[in-house]
């Protein structure tokens, strides 16, 4: 089993700026990826088309953990035939590749954002 399958990723924040760029921020343990050269990317995979687009994820290391951060220009995703896309962290090492599905910390994150029909920011309760 590739060592990278043990990688854990904790999503911390999903940010969207005024231009519509999505920035994903999270952490992984240093020991998960420190042993060999590693490429990290966030992948957006169309639910219907299965088409995937990858965006480089950057790492800021500290002694205990790595902060992983990547920006996805959502206006340019170009998955026209899809109305849903899933988000993964791709971890590639010399020994293999892992895909980690990004998850909210439910049930703590039970207020999740949505745009109203007038384009405003509201939060909807995620029923557990």
């Amino acid at each position, binding site marked *: 089993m590739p060592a990278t399958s043990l990688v854990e990723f*904790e*999503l*911390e*924040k*999903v*940010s*969207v*700026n*005024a*231009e*519509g*760029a*999505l920035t994903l921020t*999270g952490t992984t343990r240093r020991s998960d990826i420190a042993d060999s050269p590693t490429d990290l990317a966030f992948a*957006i995979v169309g*639910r219907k088309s299965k088409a995937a687009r990858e965006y480089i994820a950057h790492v800021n290391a500290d002694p205990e953990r790595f902060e992983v951060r990547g920006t996805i220009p*959502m*206006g340019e*995703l170009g*998955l026209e035939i*899809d*109305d*849903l*896309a*899933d*988000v993964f962290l791709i971890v590639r090492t010399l020994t293999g590749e892992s895909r980690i*599905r*990004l*998850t*909210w*910390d*439910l049930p*703590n*994150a*039970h*207020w*999740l*954002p*949505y*745009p*109203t029909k007038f*384009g*405003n*920011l*509201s*939060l*909807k*309760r*995620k*029923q557990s």
Partner: protein
Amino acid sequence: MTEPGTSGSALPAMKYFMVLWGIADNFGGMTTMSLHRGSAFQLHGGRTATIVTFDPKPSYASTVERLQGQGQLAAGTEVLNVFQHYRSKGLGNVDGPLPIDVPVDKGETGLPEVVLDPEGKVFTRTRLRPDGSTVAVRQFYRPDGTEFLRDEAPQDRTGKGLGRFLTLLDISGAPVAQWRQAGDFYRSWLRSLAAGEPSTFIVDSAFASRIVSPLESENIIKFMVLHNSHIASGGDPFKGKMAAGQKLIHENTLAWDGIVFLTQKHRQDYEERFGTASNLFTVSNPKPRVDSLPDFASRSTNGVMVCRLEAQKNVPHAIDVMARVHQVMPQVKLDIYGAGSLREELQTRIDELSLQDVVHLHGHTPNAAAKFETARFSLLTSRNEGQPLSLMESLGRGCPPVSYDIRYGPSDVIDDGENGFLVSAGDVDAAADRVIQLCGGDELAQKMGEVAWDRSIRFSDTAVINQWALAIEKAWDQRAQRVVLSDLSLKLREVGYIASGGLEIAADVLWTQHSGPAAQEVLAANLVIGRRAGGKPAFLPMEVVERMPGRLVVSGSALISDLDRGVDASNNELDIFVQVHGSNVLKTFRVGFPGPTHSWVPYATVHGSLSLKLV
């Protein structure tokens, strides 16, 4: 400019103006109150007030005569109209923009329509466009036949508008001054009335607020009186939409030295939803009590309602109340005074319930308020009110009211069980019980009536003039601290959704400053969490990251505990706002979903995974 003083009068020594768009022949409560205030300022405040109007009417002479005859306008309280002023008093030293040549009108027009003054002399000639409503040109004439004002909206051959031109003309027909917007013309007139002296403008008409709101001068303070709920149809104060007629006022409250609420409850609702500012005041309408408490012995066991027969007054509930009362006390009657579109419908309901001998619709009755002097109780079952004058009239005549506790008014004037009864809105049984209590014995009704009359002194002209004096003094004192700015806006930088719950927002607050203290030193912001199902929003202070002229950079966050606090299980949606406040500034911005429309947005799958949805 001299500082206004009191000189022994309750009101500071200033010029006072009550601003209405016009005075209709059959005006309602708002105009009544404005005229009454103008008179009361003179009779009880020791200061002359002038009523100012803007409707193109040739004369108010007969109106003024009638109002004075009816005691609705004090002798000496002048009514001025912008057009009548320039028609009769000459141009004087008009301080206005220099005229330019008006483009030749190449659009189509109909025949001129002429309006004559009461002496039969031409007041206006108006030419309309073919649509029959758009004014191409309106010419105003002096009694000697010379033109003094021309209001033109020329078009080119294609019908394209070339702007508006309002030109004052001297006796020889030469242009003296010219404005490109009617509002600028009106404001120039208002400034000329103030003549550089300390002046207070009190606006009652939402329509006229558009004229006064942009009026900025160091010798002028201006108040806007809110006669009705700021929420459309008197709806829920926390989730209802803003009343269309007041929308412009509330979008720009910072323009006013005073936003005046008639009741504390109204102001409280407003502040709990939008926050507070230095320019919010509460001043009741006056409703003087009768000079002495009417003799209880002359009171029947009848009740009285004085109201229009319209849906807002909810008269069917009063009929239902009397149906219940009738089962216990068949001798108790209700007399309803007032006219309205629902009269037939209400009579049908009365007939269906066989209450013809119990509930009587009397229609419009002059001086209906006097009926409270011989009644045992009054009823108010309205859905909403601004400040129900009939309730104050009832109290001031020693007639204890039984009232629904609606927004706004009853809870400000009724101390439940002391000078009347308050019951929950819509609680017909409770209202009937209170009526039965009042009619069950003389002691309670007499005692309550005495307290009602006694405490009504707080609505006396003198008491209300004192409230106005305090508001005017405070507004005058803080006028130099009023921040005058335009184009206040919020520009979102970024929204962050915390994966473990919560929200972060970073934004720029932008404005153009015109006068007053540097806004960047005065303004602050709150992140506001609005509860879609109702209830007070939560205000969370934001950090001001950077202050500079014309811009604040602010950031704020709401933890999951902040989002949850005070939100009941039935409330499944939260709306996000940013409120900007400081000094007279109070403005709430709905936060837009970041990014372009028709883009991908993050959401959570049923399993809690992060996905993107195309919206």
